[in-house]
């Protein structure tokens, strides 16, 4: 159903976000601990990056229908 797509997308976004945020946070913590002497900035950096990636993915996912791929364009 077309109406469920959005919900699915949003679920994916959320899941993705959670994953990326978690991963970023985890990496940040790891890197902060390993390489950056427990400074907070890598945590926030990496979590931020994760979040950002998630946001970008979500947006891309949500936009995907409206984006005409070059291959389609080329075929058209």
């Amino acid at each position, binding site marked *: 159903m077309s109406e469920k797509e959005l919900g699915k997308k949003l679920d994916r976004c959320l899941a993705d976000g959670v994953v990326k945020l978690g991963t970023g946070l985890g990496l940040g913590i790891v890197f902060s601990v390993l390489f950056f002497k427990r400074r907070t900035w890598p945590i926030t950096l990496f979590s931020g990056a994760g979040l950002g990636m998630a946001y970008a993915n979500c*947006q891309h996912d949500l936009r995907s229908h409206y984006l005409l791929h070059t291959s389609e364009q080329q075929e058209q």
Partner: protein
Amino acid sequence: MLRVCLRGVKATAQKSSGRIRLTNVQQCREYTTGESSGASRVVAAGLLTVTGGIGGTIIYAKWDHKFRAAVEKNVPYSEWLLGLALGPASQDAGLPIRKQMESIQPPSMMEKQMRTSKAKSEKKLKETTEPALSQPTQNIQAEASAEATQIISAISEVQSIPAPCDTEPAAAAAAVLQETESAGAAEPLRERSAEEVAARLAQQNQDEKDIIASLSARLDDSLASSAKATLQAIGAQEAALQAITQHTHKLKEAMETEGPTEEKSTQWKDLEAALADRTTSVNVAKTALVKANEALDGLKSVIDKSRGLKITAARPLILAAEENLHKMVVDLDKVVSKVQSAESEAKIVAQYTELVNEAKQQFQREVSSLTPEIQANWKGLTGKLSTDDLNALIAHAHRRIDQLNRELAEQRVRGQIHMEAALEQQRAEDQKALDKAVGTATQHVKEEARLDQERKLAELREVIEAEMRTQLRRQAAAHTDHVRDVLKVQEQELRAEAEQDLSSKLLEQETRYRQLTQEQLDDFTLDMNAAYARLKGVEEAIDSHVEAEEEARKAHRLWLSVEALTYTLKTASAESPSMPLEDAAEAVRASCVDNDFALALTSALPEESLKRGVYSEASLRARFNSLRSLARRVALIDESHNTLYQYFLSYVQAALLFERQQEVPPTQLRSEDLDPFKLLSYASYCLEHGDLELAAKLVNQLRGEARRVVEDWLTEARLTLETRQVISLLSAYANAVGLGTTQAP
């Protein structure tokens, strides 16, 4: 405040209830105290009214029988009670009527007796002999009783119409009848009105019979009485006659015979006795005659009266009575005349005896004057007489003889004269007697002649009657003969006419028959042709019918399959689609193999519906309601605006923007109506009102993400709409075909 009020109310309620209770108790007490007297009073009054009612009913029932009957009918045990009180009802009703009847009869009897006795006394001029009186009265009584019995027996038969002839007994009878009839049931009067004439005739006959009977009885009575009287008179007269003759005979004997004195004295005594006898018998005869005359007069008056009634049947009776009367009169007259002649003879003899006595006395005187010493009966003294006396006596005798001779001569002369005078006298007397005799004889003859005439008249009348009857019979016979002849002639004529008619009619009928047969043949051939043509037509019609039936069946099948198809649409439940329409569509296709239109339509069914089925409108509606909120949420998103932030803004807008749930869509969409919120509200309204098509159209106007979101719903809606359209078309088509094939009655 409220509480105060409530309290106040409660208080007042309590107080009032208390008062009421008190008053109730008081009243109860009053009732209880007065109850005993009141109750007894009520009971007494009730008993009084009941007894009064019952007593009044009984008394009134005693007086009015109809009321009693009504009460007995309506109230169950009243008849028992009334029977106890008054005695059984039926007797009371029956007795008065009978009493009335009985009371009616005796007065009528008494009335009649009085009337008839008066009449009898008028007729008989105060009867002298009691037996004669008692007999008629007895007869009257018997007659009256007979009449009464007659009447009583005739009550059931005869009508209560007064007799036309106005005779007393009949009138009395009618009065009695009327009274008894009126006392009895009045219904026979009304019911028998048709038999009046017959009844009247019967009544008249009855009356005549009665009159005749009474008449005959009266005549018989008077005849008997007069006959008796006449017989008595005749007997008396004959006795008188006998006595007179005897007396005269004795006198003659006494005069002529010359016997001894004892015989003479006995003779004289006998004579005196005979004379006395004669006088008594003559008197008796006279009285008897008077009586007989009276009786005869009475009979005559009766006869006259009965003649005055003018009833033909009584004439012979009257005639007989008259004859009897006449005979009696004649006999009486005869006897009277005999007696009169005897009396005249007796007179003569008496005169003769007187004369003789006188002469004797004269002679005796003379002799005594001559010879005083000689006693009366000188004949016995002839031996004792002396010669002187004898000579004197002889001389006296000679002188006497001379004297007597002279007297004789004188007497002869005188006698002649006297004889002539006597003859004259006698002639005159004879004439008188003759006249009288002639008169009586003529009267008798006249009477006889009249009686003869009447007899002859009666005979003649009878003869004439008989003649008349015979003549009438003859005439009737002649008439019948004539009629018979005429009838015969008429019969002949009619027969001839009829035969003619018959022959003509037969001829007519024959020609008509021939015509008819010819016509029939023609008609028959025509009919045959027509029938044949019709048969052909019928066959064609049947064939066409068969075709039409076939068509109808096909149409019916098509319709049924279309209905099945329509029904499969309904199998869609709330969430799941309907059954696949494949089978139904197949059935439809099968039922319209040669129908291109239907085939085309069936092929126009969308594949998806065939394979999967369609959603129902309700499910679409429900889905739309959930879709609506989603579409609202992504209302701002389209190709250009589709960042996440836009998504967020779109959510906020959806949260903050309130539009009407349902709005009536305008007939023409304007540009500002293309707002998704508005569109959704329009679509919602359309859906709520069952217009899926318009809703789909409106939803089709959504653009961007909202459109993408509702895309599936739209396709489903399109699918449903398409299928429904095709099915409706098919159904309409099937209906049309069905209507086309059905025959109007």
